[in-house]
């Protein structure tokens, strides 16, 4: 792949490396992200997958992919990537495998795996400077088990295990973990946040990442119609709103240096994003939870203030 920058959606490669007809929900933002990622990565890859919604993309004897696939478990896809990468390297070194047969190794996991259960194996893989790509599709909960709270669930959200009630009207009382910063503290060569509503930004980040040997990490904020509670047709709009409200900053880190790749000219109020989703509806009715709404907005403002990017 050449490393020149793509400027418009028309310049995205037309080849599809993931074919339609999967078990994912209609409007799944993660599937859209994956489709773009695979355009960027090509088909000479092996995806090492952790338990999650996307485990059900390959169901025996069918696969929607042109590439190879290894399902590991929820806690250890990065360790699986280590085994595959090391084996390919040593087989090529010993002349047992034609270098033409080499593959890029790609971890694919949800946020539950990435933020919680696989944090240790991910830390290990980054620490060992494993040459791999890691794609986390972040729907902010354990999706495949029916949307329970994960370390990525935002403050104020309803999940199966943080139901708003009389004692806890706000739903989740915890703040989303900052996975980008956790990863960045390991100083890998490349980390990016992406969004399926910004495919050009996504594609260029993959192109840029390609020049680095070592861990190349991507978190995509992805709308999940059944979990978030919205009509599948509004998926891309919601992905866009999470960026336009400043909730999901699009940025990258090269050897620890963070830069934002897109800053909205004018930030929309977070309420515009929140009110579209069932999982935040308790913040608006039967009574407006003014404090909670205010603190969500403040959290976003603080982030951009800290980075001196608030207009």
């Amino acid at each position, binding site marked *: 792949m050449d490393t020149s920058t793509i400027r418009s959606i028309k310049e995205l490669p037309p080849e599809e490396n993931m074919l339609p007809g999967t078990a994912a929900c209609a409007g799944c933002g993660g599937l859209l992200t994956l489709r773009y990622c695979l355009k960027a990565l090509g*088909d*000479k890859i*092996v995806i*090492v997958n952790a338990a999650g919604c996307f*485990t*059900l993309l*390959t*169901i*025996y004897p069918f*696969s929607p*992919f*042109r*590439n*190879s*696939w*290894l*399902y*590991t*478990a929820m*806690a*250890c896809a*990065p*360790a*699986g*990537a*280590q*085994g*595959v990468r*090391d*084996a*390919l*390297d*040593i*087989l090529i070194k*010993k002349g*047992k*495998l034609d270098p*033409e*047969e*080499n*593959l890029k190794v790609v971890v694919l996991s949800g946020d539950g795996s990435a933020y919680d259960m696989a944090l*240790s*194996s991910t*830390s*290990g893989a980054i*620490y*060992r400077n494993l040459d791999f790509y890691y794609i986390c599709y972040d729907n902010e909960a354990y999706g495949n088990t029916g949307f329970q709270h994960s370390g990525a669930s935002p403050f104020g959200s309803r999940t199966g295990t943080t139901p708003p009630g009389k004692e806890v009207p706000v739903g989740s009382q915890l703040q989303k973990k900052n996975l980008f910063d956790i990863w960045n503290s390991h100083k890998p060569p490349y980390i990016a946040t992406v969004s399926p509503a910004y495919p050009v930004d996504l594609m260029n980040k993959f192109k840029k990442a390609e020049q680095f040997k070592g861990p190349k990490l991507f978190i995509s904020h992805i709308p999940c119609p059944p979990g978030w509670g919205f009509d599948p047709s509004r998926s891309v709009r919601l992905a866009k709103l999470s960026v336009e409200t400043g909730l999901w900053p699009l940025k990258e880190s090269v050897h620890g240096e963070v830069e934002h790749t897109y800053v909205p000219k004018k930030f929309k109020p977070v309420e515009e994003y929140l009110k579209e989703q069932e999982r935040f509806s308790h913040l608006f009715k039967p009574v407006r939870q003014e404090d909670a709404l205010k603190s969500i907005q403040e959290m976003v403002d603080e982030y951009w203030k800290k980075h001196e990017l608030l207009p």
Partner: protein
Amino acid sequence: MGKEMLTGNSAAAWGVRLAEVDYIPAYPITPQTEIIETIAKWISDGSMDASFVTMDSEHSMITAAGAASATGARTFTTTSSQGLLYGFEMIYTVAGWRVPLVMVNVSRGLSSPITLGPDHNDILAVRDSGFLQIHCETCQEVLDSVLMAYRLAEDERVLLPVMVNMDGFYLSFTREAVEIPDVEKVRSFLPEYRPEHAFFKAARPMAQGVAVLGGDYYSYFKYQMHLASQNALEIYKEVCDDFERIFGRKYEVIDEYMMEDAEYILVMTNSFSTLGKAAVKRAREDGVKAGLLRPRFLRPFPESEIKNALKGKKAVAVIDQNISVGKGGIIYSEMAGCLYNEIDRPLLLSFIGGLGGKNISQKEFEFIFEKMISASDTGIVEPPSLLYTESELEGITKLKEIAGKE
């Protein structure tokens, strides 16, 4: 290369070196650590051409090992006790990948209470996973079993991972004279791994470990594993014949000691069966027709060999170095299951001993033979007993007194 004094751990490391393994992901745990340190040293000084990586946990280690094996590299890993349990989830997963990984487990009792001494609750906890299990009595057997394990695992009629088990401390740190085979001879026994089956490469995309929907597919795959595991016994016999031809040492799926005319049989596994063999010899001197049967394989379970060996015997005492809490000895249950449909079956007695490395004394063996003889005289089999001597209890009581506990 001749004989050298090797610990069980270094014998395992020699097996790995001679098998010309490509890849070793590792994580330390007593009493296994010497294996990975030995291999790390060889790789560092250039005497072994392999890639070694220390992982963040056994869960990750077993995943990486299985994944490398699925990519076509000859792979080794090793653990013990809590480490094996920490990787338990991936033991099942890797077996389901049908990859020829060889793993050494150095048995150690499980927490809690935490201990370093050996027993077999660790390895037996994973017995239903699909890994084949070879249990070793001597350091030589450890080395030889690692080589045979690769032959077996890589055979296209098997394609299942193998665990080679040895007792912590009693074997891991005991030096014995071990014949280190010549590398050229090893090559003729165990050729370079050239996977013909599922593995990853660009020209042939492949999905491994995929989801199935519904019990039909799931049963199909599990049954395939079961059949492959059963195949392994026959194929192991071929492997043993080749091994004997090349190296002159003979192994079988069960080890029989003074069994021919024996009437009272001890069933034991691993290094404590050496104690059992000594006890058999002494019992013979006292005129008791004693013998010992040691299953080398616990998975697959060598049912027909065991049935044959025990035909016409008067009584069999199974000494379990494990305890299935709330049930009793695990191998006793396996033996009972194996013999149940035999019309002419011996009486089966159950003893639990050697937990956490507790010694089994000559007196206790005598007690076991007495129980077997009286059971066969009266036809009455007493309930399972835990071997624990008067003086051991006194020792504990004294310690409690010193610590100020009643």
